[in-house]
């Protein structure tokens, strides 16, 4: 197994180095207090990934081949900037219940988290990334960028959806440039790392927001075991990174409502940019977050809106400048009809299946039984907005509502799981007056 292990060490080393830079840069995003520590791990990974994605096009713009020096310069600039923009200690840093308050339950839940991560690690790394959309879209673009040493002279072929954002292809290319080779097997390691970062942000954010260790670990265990998202099939596709970005965005948005939450607006802007660079619906989520901020943000509403949307729009604009205006090739607005919408909903109901419906009902029960609070509801509302759009969109599908629902609905909806789980979990956190739902 030496060939694979050697390649994994190289990819892991690159991501670790990028995340180490991200850990330092995260000082400009989160207060240094202990309750933020677990979340900061996830944000460090997010910054590391953002550095890996962005140093590739920046090198092209500078007329240089992307490599270790270009990456080190960009990371160094960001580290230096973070020293000047350090977020001060939090004035609202909570005193947290210790992790060992219910040792047996916490040990069991921790083991389930480890089991979920280990199983996904095995699924992701069994073979080179192979899904249709990896081969035809995400991997194809990343490989073409890397092997061309620049943006390919020929526009990406139509079947590869040139209208999709390039964040994930740039990430693949960035790792390939730094490891000096295209290895689509070792690069699958990124995906369990996305999963771990997602779990760290979800559990860390819940703990900081006064959810008990039991609730935080339960949410992490449920997410770690969520195979519809962390599957072999979705490894290599944009859903796992999008799920991570949506969670970052949702938690930052909820934090931004609090006047004392230092760094929340910066986190919101970065998460919005990451979302928009990952998938087209990332821009939609940023817009929905902007509207939620305007509706619920009170006196901070304009600050929240200004952080939520412009960064995403900027990323979108950069794509537009490079590729021009391209239509969404799977959709035609003129196709909408009530009959197509009903066909879409009927197909969705069938696709979920009996066990899926049991799961959906349990999730709804958990959402209803939890306490109503603005921060929790923000995350659930954001996930709900996206879910509604996912149900509506197939009515516009060129290849028919049934085709779109059957091929995409479960996987794109699964990407909303971390966002929804964190929101629902927060409904069981201690309220300001000490009550628990």
């Amino acid at each position, binding site marked *: 197994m030496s060939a*694979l292990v050697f390649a994994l060490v190289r990819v892991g080393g690159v991501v670790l180095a990028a995340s180490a830079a991200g850990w330092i840069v995260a000082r400009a995003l989160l207060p240094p207090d202990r309750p933020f520590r677990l979340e900061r791990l996830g944000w460090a990974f997010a910054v590391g990934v953002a550095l890996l994605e962005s140093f590739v096009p920046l090198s092209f713009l500078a007329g240089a081949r992307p490599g270790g020096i270009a990456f080190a310069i960009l990371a160094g600039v960001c580290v230096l900037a973070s020293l000047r923009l350090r977020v001060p200690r939090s004035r609202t840093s909570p005193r947290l219940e210790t992790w060992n308050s219910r040792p047996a339950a916490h040990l069991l839940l921790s083991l389930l988290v480890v089991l979920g991560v280990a199983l996904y690690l095995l699924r992701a790394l069994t073979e080179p990334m192979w899904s249709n959309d990896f081969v035809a879209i995400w991997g194809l673009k990343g490989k073409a960028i890397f092997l061309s040493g620049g943006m390919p002279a020929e526009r990406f072929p139509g079947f590869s959806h040139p209208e999709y954002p390039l964040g994930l292809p740039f990430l693949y290319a960035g790792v390939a440039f730094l490891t000096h080779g295209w290895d689509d097997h070792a690069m699958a390691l990124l995906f369990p790392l996305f999963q771990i970062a997602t779990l760290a942000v979800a559990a860390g954010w819940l703990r900081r927001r006064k959810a008990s260790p039991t609730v935080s670990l339960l949410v992490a265990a449920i997410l770690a075991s969520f*195979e519809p998202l962390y599957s072999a099939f979705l490894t290599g596709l944009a859903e796992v990174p999008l799920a991570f970005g949506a969670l970052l965005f949702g938690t930052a948005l909820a934090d931004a409502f609090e006047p004392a939450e230092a760094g929340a607006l910066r986190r919101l802007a970065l998460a919005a940019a990451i979302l928009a660079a990952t998938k087209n619906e990332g821009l939609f989520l940023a817009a929905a977050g902007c509207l939620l901020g305007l509706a619920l943000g009170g006196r901070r509403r304009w600050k929240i809106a200004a952080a939520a949307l412009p960064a995403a729009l900027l990323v979108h604009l950069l794509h537009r400048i490079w590729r021009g205006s391209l239509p969404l090739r799977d959709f035609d607005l003129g196709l909408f009809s009530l009959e197509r919408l009903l066909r879409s909903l009927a197909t969705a109901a069938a696709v979920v299946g009996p066990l899926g419906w049991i799961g959906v009902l349990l999730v709804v029960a958990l959402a209803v039984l939890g306490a109503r609070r603005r921060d929790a509801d923000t995350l659930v509302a954001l996930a709900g907005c996206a879910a509604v759009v996912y149900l509506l969109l197939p009515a516009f599908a060129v290849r028919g509502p049934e085709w779109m629902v059957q091929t995409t609905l479960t996987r794109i909806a699964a990407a909303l799981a971390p966002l929804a789980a964190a929101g629902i979990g927060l409904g069981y956190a201690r309220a300001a007056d000490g009550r628990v739902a």
Partner: protein
Amino acid sequence: MSPSTRPRLAAVAAVLLLLLLLSSQPLAEIPRRIRTLEAYGGKELAVRRLGGSGAAFDRRYFSFLENARRRLPRTTTAVLLSGVPEDEAHLYLAAYQLAPLTVDFARPVFEAGHPATGAVIAVYGRQPSESEHAIAVLPEGFLMAGDPP
């Protein structure tokens, strides 16, 4: 509903959800995955892909593409596929395996006119006839210039 009932109901729902997710984990495939890793982990990347799910629909075709990739002239600008089933799976795998070159099926390109300068025709599933000037002969087919002088 009494205040103590809600957390109990929620706890039951959460545990049921966790059990549902754990039961839906594809545990039966673990031994196969471990065996695959043991068998292929030490082999070169192309062999790992050849043995994987991405090439399962036509492993001989993947072998053809990989051999073609290794034998293409450095001046190649595009690859036109001939003798290949004209479906998405065959086109996507070729485009990925031969990236960053432009890849298309030969038939529609020739029907529309002449191929681009530097294009190579990759013929799958047969050996060259006497009248065909092969650039390279592969176990699964051969390569020839798309724009012969």
